[in-house]
């Protein structure tokens, strides 16, 4: 499996002439036809919305209102999927038919990555680049925030623009990054890790990716539509009073929610049903455990988010009053619906991060995962408890005070399974024969960073402390350590680790170490002082602050620029090595026992020549008597024989 950057090998048919295959590709549906259809859908929906609700003017003389905006967006997305060719199958089913799926190929042209591919490896790579793009755009917005905070009195942005940027940054990170591990790594690796040649529902998998693209652009469009002053948490009444930028928020979040549901349904069905013979639950890789745990958490929490966003949309467009107290509603309804998803969501970000960290650590420690079952229990424990903590977000916003101790307790309890995950990692590296390659450095940094985020999290869950620091930069620093410090470091480590498998190249250790150390130092230099800034009373989402905090803020901003430069360095060196130098990798450069590494580079089009038979755990490092993990060429019954 490799991207061929140099020549067009055609899509859909091998060996065809370049021109005709390009024409076939265009006719089959792709990002360009989708954009064209989507634009048409937008104009139709917008026009229709104005016909039926032209008198609901949200912005004076703009010709835009919530109904026309939302109808425009809905039609745009439906047309987008028509343009991709994604609806051919459901429409064919109306007549009892089935649209054919494109043949898998060993080598894809670059164009295939811009079409509705049902090959899990292509989807994984589509996700990887898209998620990185979303992350870097959101990161640029963060630099916009830090630029404003260089001075308490001299302003780059107005207060409205500032809060728009803050909201956009927060939403983009929290919303899009839920898929940054399941999307690229889950889709690419899970079939390989469980010994399957395919996913259970490839069309659903493809749909999950193609929801993210309009979600991103709709969310970005809020910037030039007045933004959304409610921030990523979307609290009412701000959210029901804002302009159409708020519609962009709720609509794009809904699209991401649909993406998560599609991805998790496919993931659950695949992991449960498509495991190779011998792949018992006890032999499943930690990453696969992380994926199925995350997927179940999504299935049970994301629909409630859709409810919340739908309630907001109905209040805005159809004039219901569910979030408006005067007519029998309550803004607290949103807080409950949102956080019932929102707190599990934090773990939707953290769990895959821990899973991939625990997956990679033993390879570089040359030891089995310490207390593997405890790690799995930790993931399941975190996922389960995450449904019982949401009200800690309401400690300060008017919940029944008698309920506070209950949610304080449940929140503190979650530190126990989280501690399992942490200690499993520590136990795995303890007395290991550590190899400090770039992926390992990132994984070790995960534990350093998460220590700050985790310990401060325990304090945050205490009602008295929360009452003091709520809404301050202290909380902001806490969740940046738990999410960026944990998840994003795990992601970058995983990129360095899995690049040979994804692209057939091995990224430079030297350049990787420059990236790691600059990112690690700049990250801590950016976010550690924010604990102090918050402790000294600087609130979030306010563009002015006390003059005495200027020095600390300037330090943080400059560190943030260095962090940005470090990430830019990664982008440049990554693309340079991927496109220009292409340093070839050996088949299993890290000497991993994982099944995914046994298939060779590039990964064969069907992953395995034959269904493998799994013989042992993937983590038997340091055991001289350990046999191979799998028999990759077991005897196969003749096709069509009487099973």
């Amino acid at each position, binding site marked *: 499996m490799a991207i061929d950057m140099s020549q067009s090998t055609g899509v859909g048919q091998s060996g065809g002439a370049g021109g005709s295959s390009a024409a076939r590709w265009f006719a089959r549906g792709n990002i360009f036809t989708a954009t064209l259809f989507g634009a048409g859908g937008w104009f139709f929906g917008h026009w229709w919305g104005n016909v039926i609700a032209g008198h609901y003017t949200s912005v004076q003389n703009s010709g835009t209102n919530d109904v026309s905006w939302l109808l425009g967006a809905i039609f745009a997305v439906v047309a987008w999927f028509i343009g991709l060719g994604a609806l051919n199958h459901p429409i064919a089913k109306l007549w*009892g038919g089935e649209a054919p799926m494109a043949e898998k190929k060993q080598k894809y042209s670059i164009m295939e990555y811009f079409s509705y591919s049902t090959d899990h490896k292509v989807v994984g790579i589509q996700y990887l680049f898209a998620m990185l793009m979303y992350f870097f755009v959101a990161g640029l917005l963060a630099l916009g925030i830090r630029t404003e905070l260089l001075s308490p009195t001299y302003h780059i942005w107005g207060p409205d623009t500032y809060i728009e940027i803050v909201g956009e940054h927060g939403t983009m990170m929290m919303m899009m990054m839920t898929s940054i591990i399941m999307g690229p790594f889950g889709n690419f690796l899970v079939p390989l890790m469980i010994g399957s040649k395919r996913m*259970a529902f490839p069309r659903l998998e493809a749909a999950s990716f193609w929801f993210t693209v309009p979600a991103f652009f709709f969310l970005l469009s809020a910037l030039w539509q007045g933004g959304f002053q409610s921030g990523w948490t979307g609290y009412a009444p701000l959210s029901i009073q804002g302009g159409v930028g708020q519609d962009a928020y709720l609509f794009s979040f809904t699209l991401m929610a649909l993406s998560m549901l599609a991805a998790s349904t496919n993931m659950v069905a695949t992991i*449960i049903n498509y495991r190779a013979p011998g792949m018992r639950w006890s032999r499943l890789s930690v990453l696969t455990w992380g994926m199925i745990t995350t997927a179940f958490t999504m299935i049970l929490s994301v629909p409630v988010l859709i409810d919340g966003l739908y309630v907001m949309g109905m209040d805005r467009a159809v004039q219901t009053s569910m979030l408006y107290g*005067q007519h*029998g509603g309550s803004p607290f309804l949103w807080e409950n*619906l949102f956080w019932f998803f929102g707190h599990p969501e934090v773990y939707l970000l953290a769990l895959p991060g821990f899973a991939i960290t625990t997956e990679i650590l033993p390879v570089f420690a040359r030891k089995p995962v310490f207390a593997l079952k405890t790690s799995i229990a930790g993931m399941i424990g975190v996922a389960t408890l995450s449904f019982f903590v949401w009200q800690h977000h309401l400690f300060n916003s008017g919940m029944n005070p008698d309920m506070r101790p209950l949610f304080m307790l449940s929140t503190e309890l979650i530190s126990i399974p989280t501690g399992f995950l942490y200690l499993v990692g520590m136990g795995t590296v303890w007395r290991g024969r550590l190899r400090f390659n770039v992926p390992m450095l990132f994984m070790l940094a995960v534990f350093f960073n998460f220590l700050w985020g985790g310990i401060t999290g325990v304090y945050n869950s205490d009602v008295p402390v929360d009452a003091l620091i709520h809404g301050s930069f202290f909380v902001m620093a806490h969740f940046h350590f738990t999410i960026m410090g944990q998840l994003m470091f795990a992601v970058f480590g995983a990129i360095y680790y899995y690049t040979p498998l994804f692209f057939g190249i091995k990224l430079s250790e030297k350049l990787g170490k420059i990236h790691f150390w600059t990112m690690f130092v700049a990250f801590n230099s950016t976010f550690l002082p924010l604990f102090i800034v918050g402790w000294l009373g600087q609130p979030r989402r306010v563009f002015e602050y006390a003059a005495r905090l200027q020095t600390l803020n300037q330090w943080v901003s400059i560190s943030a620029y260095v962090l940005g430069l470090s990430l830019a360095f990664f982008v440049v060196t990554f693309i340079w090595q991927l496109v220009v130098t292409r340093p070839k990798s050996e088949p299993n450069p890290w000497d991993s026992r994982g099944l995914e590494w046994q298939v060779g580079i590039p990964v064969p089009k069907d992953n395995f020549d034959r269904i493998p038979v799994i013989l042992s755990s993937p983590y038997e490092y340091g055991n001289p008597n350990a046999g191979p993990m799998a028999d990759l060429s077991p005897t196969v019954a*003749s096709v069509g024989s009487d099973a």
Partner: protein
Amino acid sequence: MASNVDERPVIDEEAYYHDASLGATWTASRTAVAMVATLYGGIAFAFFYLRSLNSNGQWNPNHITASTIIGTTILVLMVVAALVNYFGARRLRRGMVVDWQVAAAFTALFVLVAGGMQIWELTRLPFQPSSFGYASVFVAFGPVNAFAILLSAYWAETAVMQSVRIKKLAITDGGLGLSSLPVAEKFRANVDGLSFFLNGMALITIVFYVIFYVIA
């Protein structure tokens, strides 16, 4: 089975992935019910939360509900559809394919009408969306319910059309209801998933009938 040429296990790939796809259909239909139930659960939460808060005494000051007649009709249609499908599926397992086709076609029709009734009810409400709390939650519930019901109708319709298209393939092997051909087994897995989903929808319809028309 092909003979075992050495000590290693023998795997029939086609059969293996066929079984996996049957399992995936089972898993996905159960997952779909879990997701839909959670989606409706959020609306139930909104109902009970706002009802218990009764902000400004505006939950439902005049004790008005949406049309009970239409609501009852939707309830009856959904429950009957689930029952018809259930008995049809039983007959399918005994090999009576035409019986199932008739039952499933009626199921699709009943469910389609129920979805249409739900949309029609929204046009005949005795209140405005913002009149009071109950009104708002009902106006929000209506489109979700219509969408989920119409999704069930789509599933039922596609199953019927699939059976029409593939019927001949299994005719020499006992028919779609009994054949051990992969295509027939996949079809039956789809029917099983549909039945589970429809039963779930019928249960949800009963619960929400009680919520919106009895408790109110």
